């Protein structure tokens, strides 16, 4: 890790995003007190994760990447065990199991749960002490799209209960839909940090409009518009690339002024994935 520095605000969902091996988990484990950094200072809830590890652990909830429980521990045993480890007396266990759709799995062994169920159980365990900050490391990796969406909904629910969420992900869609702010990390360095919208506006101001128009004059008209950088026609589809938020409006105005008949119209907006490509020079999947 190289000079990583960031603040996470109360009540937000903060995401550390980057490819595998970028240092997301290492950073998170330092903040949780599971790993000791070589140098630097970390403060969580006004506690030092190394000196006050147990005090801190008592007030946070943690979900680790690729964690397991004892194969033959029952769901309810895990929940009761975890509940007994924290100072705060809590009777949340059953309600959480209910809420995360695990109520009918109370007597099942951990090894018999599906990937999604295990992940949801880990969320229950991370929330069992009514923590002030929740850490979620690659929460939805390996889950099908449906479970993934269900879990996103849960994470939003955590924020609505006034908790702070600190998560890592290499899924840009997840970060964009879930996070209030993200930090892009690569090779142990934070490249930039902001809300997803602002990052997109900053790095990827370009807009793309794709439309289907039979009018032979259309292409030339788009080409002469201000802000347009590239117009390409292919198979009856015209792709217009340009920058600035006004591009879409201007295209629509142009269509209407010239009474160009359009049979299809869509806009392509850049996303965090494009931002990542722009700032690192390569795709997150490389």
């Amino acid at each position, binding site marked *: 890790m190289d000079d990583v520095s960031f603040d996470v605000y109360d009540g937000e969902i903060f995401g550390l995003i980057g490819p595998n091996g970028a240092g997301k988990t290492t950073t998170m484990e330092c903040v949780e007190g599971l790993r000791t950094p070589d140098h630097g200072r970390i403060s969580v809830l006004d506690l030092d994760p190394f000196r006050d590890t147990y005090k801190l*652990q008592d007030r946070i909830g943690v979900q680790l990447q690729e964690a*397991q429980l004892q194969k033959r521990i029952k769901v309810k045993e895990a929940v009761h065990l975890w509940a*007994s480890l924290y100072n705060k007396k809590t009777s949340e266990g059953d309600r959480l199991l209910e809420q995360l759709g695990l109520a009918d799995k109370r007597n099942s062994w951990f090894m018999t749960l599906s990937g999604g169920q295990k992940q949801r159980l880990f969320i229950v365990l991370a929330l069992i002490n009514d923590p002030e900050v929740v850490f979620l490391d690659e929460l939805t990796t390996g889950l099908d799209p449906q479970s993934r969406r269900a879990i996103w909904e849960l994470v939003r629910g955590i924020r609505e209960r006034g908790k702070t969420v600190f998560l890592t992900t290499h899924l840009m869609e997840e970060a964009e839909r879930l996070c209030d702010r993200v930090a892009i990390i690569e090779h142990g360095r934070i490249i930039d940090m902001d809300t997803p919208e602002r990052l997109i506006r900053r790095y990827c101001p370009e807009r793309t409009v794709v439309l289907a128009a039979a009018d032979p004059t259309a292409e030339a008209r788009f080409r002469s518009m201000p802000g347009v950088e590239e117009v390409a026609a292919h198979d009856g589809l015209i792709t217009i690339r340009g920058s600035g938020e006004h591009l879409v409006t201007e295209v629509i105005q142009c269509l209407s002024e010239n009474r160009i008949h359009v049979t299809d119209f869509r806009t392509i907006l850049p996303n965090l994935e494009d931002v990542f490509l722009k700032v690192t020079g390569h795709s997150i999947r490389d």
Partner: protein
Amino acid sequence: MLRGLLKLTWVEIKIFFREPLGAIGTVVTPVLVFILFGWLGTHIVPERSLAAGPGLRIDVPVFAAVLIAINAVLSLVAIMAIYREGGILKRLRATPLRPQTILTAHVLVKLILTAATLTLALMAGKRYYPVGADVPLVGFGFALLISTWSILSIGFLISSIVPTARFAQPIGAVILYPMLVLSGLFFPLDGLPPALRALTRALPFTYSVSLLRGIWHGDSWAMHVGDVAALAIVFVICTALSAKVFRWE
């Protein structure tokens, strides 16, 4: 944190019995071996003491007790390695649970199982080893707990170092069984060459066997203060070392 310790210990005991092979290996096998020896002793060897040949002498109860202890240690080594490899230790560590508490829970589980296995063995073997008033059972159980506790710390040290679960049990066996051979259980140590004899003095089993055998045969505890002290030293050294080298993941 006592609540967490007791809860974890109880959960681990339940989990242990849900794994049939582990339970059979740790609890049933020693009991069966104990009975088998007893049966052999009464039916094959007339003197019932299993003095199979000159120089070879086995106190079956002591042998069974040590076997129980070794089983407990090997199973501890395996469980620790599996828990580490599977990320279970790490997940437990990301709670206010202290490392010592997690380890203590596992030691407690093994001690409880050791005591239970010994009780079972003695009950099952009553026919062959009539336990008279001259055998201080409570004392013997206590001696076994001290021995196991001490040998468990060697197990900790092994499980702190072994890289993967696959190696844990074989490495444990390779380290423990030779110690057992040189423990004085099978042949008297007095006849060994000086170098080997010095080596046996460095091995904890020597002291467990001496302690267990002594107590079984009615020695007073005062005669075995040295054994207990040696076992305590082994415990302290191994615990300190494993605290230094223990890896959570």
